[in-house]
């Protein structure tokens, strides 16, 4: 199909808007000045060195990785059965229950963070670490339900009936027939939930405390008091991680199918 030249130019502008800031960050991360300068005047890798020698970045990166992976696993464990029930069964109050499952996405993140802080940390006196884990798990459940639900919808239901007619119980049917056919959906869902948990600010903002904080929160504090390209360098490293994750998602489910 022949495309209109004006439309083409417009689209170029929009994607420039989306990518120029990212390119500027990447460029400044290699600068030699002690402040963020664009275009950079000299080349240096010292900001990358800086990232790896700043104790708080390394420590909170480890915490972020740990809680994001665990929270994602919990969300999947809670979300997969829920997604299966929502796609395969008809029952009373389905819409209402669906809305309940999606409520962590409807409630603004800062509100979730605030009420959980007040209720779990202050009232129930749960340790910060577990509160953070719980908060992120709840935050990721809707993701798990949505991505896995859509890959469940692609699995032909008659396949399950066939398995049951051959003598498989419901549980056997799920693990031997359904599960192998939604593994790509589960991997994609894991990756997306993980990155979303890793990137989360509003919920983790409230659920962090002495000794326990996540990388994005540390970065935010750093940005508010420093103006050097260390954050640019760290950003480039995190964007490489994002690209790696997108690559895995593309190879499993296909980016287009999200």
């Amino acid at each position, binding site marked *: 199909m022949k495309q209109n030249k004006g*439309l*083409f130019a*417009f*689209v170029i502008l*929009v*994607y420039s*808007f*989306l990518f120029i*800031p*990212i390119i*500027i*960050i990447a460029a*400044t991360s290699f600068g030699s000045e002690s*402040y*963020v300068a664009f275009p950079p005047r000299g080349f240096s890798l010292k900001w990358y060195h800086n990232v790896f020698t700043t104790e708080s970045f390394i420590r909170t990166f480890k915490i972020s990785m740990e809680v994001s992976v665990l929270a994602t696993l919990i969300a999947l*464990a*809670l979300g997969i*059965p*829920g997604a*299966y*029930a929502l796609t395969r*069964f008809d*029952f009373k109050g389905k819409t209402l229950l669906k809305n*309940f*499952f999606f*409520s962590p996405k*409807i409630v*603004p*993140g*800062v*509100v*979730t963070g*605030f*009420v*959980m802080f*007040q*209720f779990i940390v202050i*009232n129930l006196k749960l340790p910060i670490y577990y509160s953070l884990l*719980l908060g992120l798990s*709840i935050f990721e459940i809707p993701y798990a339900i949505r991505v896995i639900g859509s890959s469940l919808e692609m699995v032909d239901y008659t396949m399950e009936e066939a398995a049951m007619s051959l003598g498989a119980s*419901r549980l056997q049917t799920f693990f031997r027939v359904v599960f192998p056919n939604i593994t790509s959906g589960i991997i994609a869902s894991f990756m*997306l939930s993980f990155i*979303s948990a890793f*990137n989360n*600010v*509003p919920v983790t*903002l409230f659920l962090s405390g002495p000794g326990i904080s996540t990388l*994005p929160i540390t*970065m*935010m504090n750093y*940005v*508010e008091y420093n*103006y050097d390209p260390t*954050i640019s360098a760290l*950003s480039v490293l*995190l*964007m490489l991680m*994002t690209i790696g994750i997108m690559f895995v998602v593309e190879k499993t489910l296909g*980016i*287009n199918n999200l």
Partner: protein
Amino acid sequence: MKKKWAYLLMAPGLIVIVAFLIIPILSSILPTFHDGDSLTFSSYTDFFKDSYYNQIFMRTLRISIITVVICAILGVPTAYFVSKSNKKIRGILIACTIFPLLTNSVIRSFAWITILGRNGVLNNALLTLNLIAEPKRLLYTEGAIIVGSVYLFLPLMIVSLVGVMENIEGELFEAAESLGASKIKAFFKVILPLSVPGLIVGCVLVFTGAASAYTTPQLLGGNRKMVLSTLIYQQTMTLGDWYGASVVATIMIVTSILVMGTINRLAAKLNERGV
């Protein structure tokens, strides 16, 4: 027997959500409606009467609405282009759209600090070109928050629209052309009306996202230009005014539900019409 299974499968997830999200929400916001034993809305009328809070509320609404409008204007033509591209180019463009979405909001806001800052890219460029005599204050303005929010949420708008536009049959556009409509007319008479469901989803996502974002207004607006989400944090962590924070939390939830409800009802009405 089948139904029992369904409830059993959903139970763990629902119990966790109810116990650690729904109950905490209720336990925070219910007290704001109590004055002794009687129901009262005085906390809320006080909030809106206070010009400082009122201003923050209006700023949040204004930023969100302007962000939605700009995202729609930029997103509709872009999404159309993406949806009509061949498979390979579409894949690349969608990856380019999703990449920013998966990038940390701190990074994305930081990028705009380097662009809009006093010694930032934009001020430097304007100074070099002699368009301004001294650096302008671009950061810590509503404009900065809006630019940052559009940057944050435009990909969401594009993705929601592409999903719908992809499914508009190419033959509809050709049919309009064969009946005498130029490409531009065919777009406005056929493609745009049929994209409304995607546009609505996109608007809801962008509005609720912009109205509840924390990182971008915090980094690009600072304490000068507070919005509801930065206010809630300040009240809890800096001022220790948890009651006030609960009032803000209620207002944020109600706004979010009202906007979603209104827009979804609009969508349902359009659906009845047969789209």
